[in-house]
């Protein structure tokens, strides 16, 4: 490749850098930046601990505090609750996507990336791929806590893996919403605040902790149509046995809708901000 022929600066063009961005370089750049996210997870044991601790508290507290009152038997409630807590943990974890994107913008890390001859979308792709790893870790952690207190899902490995994949698909959809919020929010902290306001009703007004049948009429209507309810119902059916077809279909439709709305919005906000 003749590189030294650049007119003007007498510039030595960076030898390795391709003349233009191809889809292949985009994927390569994205994977490198996903690696960055994973390294950051590894480098921050406190965060990993948080990923474990929070679900641990939720599972243990809910099972033992509410279990008997809810179902007369904490073991029955444990089995009911586990899919719900997995879903809830992952839904909350998607907030991290927007938070870290916002942090990267604020710290000028995105400026550095954008001054490099790499694909423009690579930092966004990298952040989302890296976060999928984080969500997967979350799923495994909550499951481990469940196993520790005797959760033995009847759906077996296949059911558990199916439920795990489904929640990851849902998280993938939801993280575009988080990315969008992250790119329009002024500071990482406001992402956090906004997210909390959204995530609590989204997870509690669902079938995650209590069956919607036991809720007052108006709330029941909300919960029945909450995408998280479809997700949790699917996971319950897959893990504990039951008819999964309908809730899984609904969950996938919701994931597609959320992605269709928020993927373009996130990309738009990303381009505007960076």
């Amino acid at each position, binding site marked *: 490749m003749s590189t030294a022929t650049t007119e003007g600066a007498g*510039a030595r063009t960076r030898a390795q850098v391709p003349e233009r961005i191809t889809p292949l370089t985009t994927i390569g750049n994205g994977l490198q930046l996903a690696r960055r996210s994973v390294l950051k997870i590894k480098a921050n044991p406190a965060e990993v601990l948080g990923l474990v601790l929070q679900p641990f508290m939720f599972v243990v507290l809910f099972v033992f505090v509410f279990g008997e009152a809810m179902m007369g038997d904490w073991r029955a409630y444990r089995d009911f609750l586990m899919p719900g807590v997995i879903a809830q943990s992952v839904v909350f974890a998607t907030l991290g996507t927007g938070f870290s994107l916002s942090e990267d913008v604020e*710290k*000028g890390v995105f*400026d*550095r990336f954008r*001054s*490099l001859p790499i694909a423009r979308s690579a930092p966004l792709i990298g952040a989302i791929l890296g976060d999928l790893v984080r969500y997967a870790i979350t799923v495994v952690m909550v499951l481990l806590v469940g196993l520790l207190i005797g959760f033995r899902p009847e759906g077996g490995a296949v059911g558990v893996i199916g439920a795990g994949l489904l929640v990851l698909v849902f998280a993938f959809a939801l993280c575009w919403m988080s990315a969008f919020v992250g790119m329009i929010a002024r500071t990482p902290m406001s992402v956090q605040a906004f997210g909390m306001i959204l995530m609590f009703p989204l997870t509690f007004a669902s079938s995650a902790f209590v069956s919607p049948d036991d809720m007052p009429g108006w709330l029941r209507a909300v919960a029945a149509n909450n995408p998280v309810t479809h997700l949790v119902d699917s996971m319950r059916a897959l893990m504990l046995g039951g008819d999964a077809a309908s809730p899984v279909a609904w969950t996938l439709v919701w994931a597609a809708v959320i992605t269709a709305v928020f993927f373009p919005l996130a990309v738009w906000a990303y381009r505007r901000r960076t």
Partner: protein
Amino acid sequence: MTDAIRAEGLVKQFKGKRALDGVDLTARTGTVLGVLGPNGSGKTTTVRILATLLRPDAGHAEVGGFDVVREPHQVRRLIGLTGQYAAVDNELTGTQNLVMIARLLGMGRAESRARTTELLERFGLTDAADRPVKTYSGGMRRRLDLAASLVGRPSLLYLDEPTTGLDPHSRNGLWGVVRGLVDDGVTVLLTTQYLEEADQLADDLVVLDHGRVISRGTPEELKSRAGDQVLELRTADPGQLHLAGKIVEAVTGSPVEVAPGDLAVAVPVADAGVLPEVVRRLDDQGLAVGELSLRRPSLDEVFLALTGRAAEEHTENEEARA
């Protein structure tokens, strides 16, 4: 000699407010162009446009012969950017930070390692290579950030206030690095709030104020316009400052205004030879001197000389140094 950077009539508005109002500048290949200006004068906005991070509303700029708006990828292949705040990952180690950039630039694993080792050594970070960046001092973080912008051997380097907030030792170290890069043939665009820094490093200077170029030339030309040195006088009795001001005015030929409450007068002087004359006349009048000194002009004083008014959003003044 060709120009590495050529910008004409750059305009940038933020929500109706003009951050840049027609900035022209050129940087000759292999030299250091200093962009001097107080906070909010448009330095960072200029750098961001030249680094393809921001589109100008009007005007155009070429870097290495490529248009920053139409050919951003080609521009990015030439430049390195060190922003005003260190853009390194605090959770990662110094090595991890640099290897990541090298890999992004398409270097192989071994080459990335080698380049990283080389840069860490050059910036005195070898001992800290495998520590997370959050354990680094401010100066170390800046150096790593600078190293990160050099991974791809850019032929053009943008440094946005690289020494703001650094202690004098780290500042000197960074100056040395910049000089070394220039020796290697790198063109540097450096923004600063410090006249001394511009004087030390820049071959050419552009002075920005409110998004406009208010002066340009070599540091020497600029200083001679602003007065090479500043004579500062404090009388033992503040009540006599007015009288002392009249004497200084008579000797230097520069107008001196003393407002009530002023404790000192400061005047640009072209020639240090006026000092004995000032002393003699003060003595003749029987005025007791509190303090009398000659020092380099501060950025504020340069601004005063160039614009007839003080820099508005000034931060710390350049410390007086003989």
